[in-house]
């Protein structure tokens, strides 16, 4: 159900993003989805990649601060209101979204949204009960 996401601490300095993608590219790691959250001083780059362990290892070797987090990939109908009804379902069931971002590729006719919940297991439960499709981790990284 869950998929591992890599998060990287990045100072607001020019060229840092290029360095991260350079390290990953050199190691042959392919980025599947990404989001960048930023403040005036620093940012957090979150990535879904095809080889999490390798990405984690090479970034660490280059002295980046890296962590792994469990997130969930959810299929959302790629039509107006698709995301809205999903979010309303979560809200009704008191599931709190810490952050979310869109996956680059589609899964069939559907869009894929990556979610980070404060309570992952409860979220999975709610999604299942509402027949919302969660994408397997392995499948997600190889889309």
């Amino acid at each position, binding site marked *: 159900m869950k998929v591992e996401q890599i998060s990287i601490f*990045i100072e607001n300095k020019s060229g840092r993003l290029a360095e991260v993608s350079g390290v990953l590219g050199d190691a042959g790691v392919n980025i599947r989805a990404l989001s960048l959250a930023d*403040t005036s001083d620093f940012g957090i780059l979150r990535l879904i990649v095809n080889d999490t362990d390798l990405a984690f290892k090479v970034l660490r070797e280059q002295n980046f601060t890296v962590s792994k987090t469990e997130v969930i990939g959810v299929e959302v109908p790629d039509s107006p209101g698709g995301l809205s009804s999903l979010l309303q379902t979560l809200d009704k069931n008191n599931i709190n979204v*810490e952050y979310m971002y869109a996956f680059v590729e589609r899964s069939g006719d559907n869009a894929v949204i990556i979610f980070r919940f404060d309570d992952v297991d409860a979220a999975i439960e709610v999604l299942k009960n509402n027949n919302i499709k969660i994408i397997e981790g392995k499948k997600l990284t190889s889309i």
Partner: protein
Amino acid sequence: MIWNDEFETLPREAIESLQLKRLQQVVERVYATVPFYQESFKKAGITPADVKSLDDLQKLPFTLKQDMRDNYPYGLFAVPLEQIVRIHASSGTTGKPTVVGYTRRDIETWTELMARSFVAAGANKGDVIHNAYGYGLFTGGLGAHYGAERVGASVIPMSGGNTKKQLMIMQDFGSTVLTCTPSYSLFLAEVAAEEGIDIKNLKLKVGILGAEPWSEKMRQEIEEKLNIKAIDIYGLSEILGPGVGIECVEAQNGLHIWEDHFIPEIINPETGEVLPVGEKGELVITTITKEGIPLIRYRTRDITRLIKEPCICGRTHARIERLSGRSDDMLIIRGVNVFPSQIESVLFNIEGVEPHYQLIVEREGNLDTLEVQVEVNEQTFSDEIKELQNLSNKIRKDIKDLLGVTCKVRLVEPKSITRSEGKAVRVIDNRQKSS
């Protein structure tokens, strides 16, 4: 104008014979009443009877700030607590402040020396003294207050902060003398300009400024922007508080140290040797009249030199040159003493934080700013912005709570703090360049 003609213009020989007499008395007193001194004198193989001339002062051991911490809170007091009428304190490294106690006579001495200082700076009866030094444990506020009352001036006990109100009072009450830190005086000018107040045309004529290092260039700026004479005042709570030394308005060249109460020496901070008059080194002060907590050869860590040439103002007391630095790593930020080790201990006490940090001090506009850069590590890193912001807020709050100084915390990448020869550079002080 001179407040105490008799003592402020004593001939050199008279000052020195008075100093010797008082030195002998204080040495006997601390030897008899303060176990710390009894021990340190014994270790140095000295008894009070060995002090036969002023030169013999060199034989006595130093007192360090650390000795005050080790004897926290009252261990160095030379009189029973019943005789102490006032207690002040300054910030310390591990949250414990440095404590000083004053007897009634000490308060009287302090008041007298601050009165001398006000008059030397060109303030007197008839002046309205706007005292913006902080009132409280810090010696600045109350020290200046009592001296101002003694000369017969009208004192406004403003204390620090609330700048707009300060300006209103300054306009409406007709303040003629301003006492605060040099950087705050410029900040007042800045806010006045924003508020459309013509600070140059207020009744202010003198600023008595101290509690932080400042340059000649900054003096020119203050004099120009506020249209006042800017006078440098020196003091430290361990010795007395403000009023240990003051520039005279006549010369504005070096600060007179009240030698009938203090003996200044200049030493080589590395070797502890006394340097010939005129050479630059660390200022060491012995208090020769203090009762509550007399200090023998206290190492101030301030770098200066002694000037013994007569001054045009007529005062015979020696002067010290404007301070040019410190022999330790203490920073003074908006009047607050900050040691890098204090910041380090704050960081140590926060779960997961490693003490990889750097302090960046700048002067933005006219106020000092402190930025604390802390390296993020895998323990403190989170994929959520709010967690990292909580971390930097906690660091900022703990530093504020413990040191009383507001700072900006910036989280940086690991290993990004410059390390030179394996040793981290803890402090980058950019203030000298700009002031």
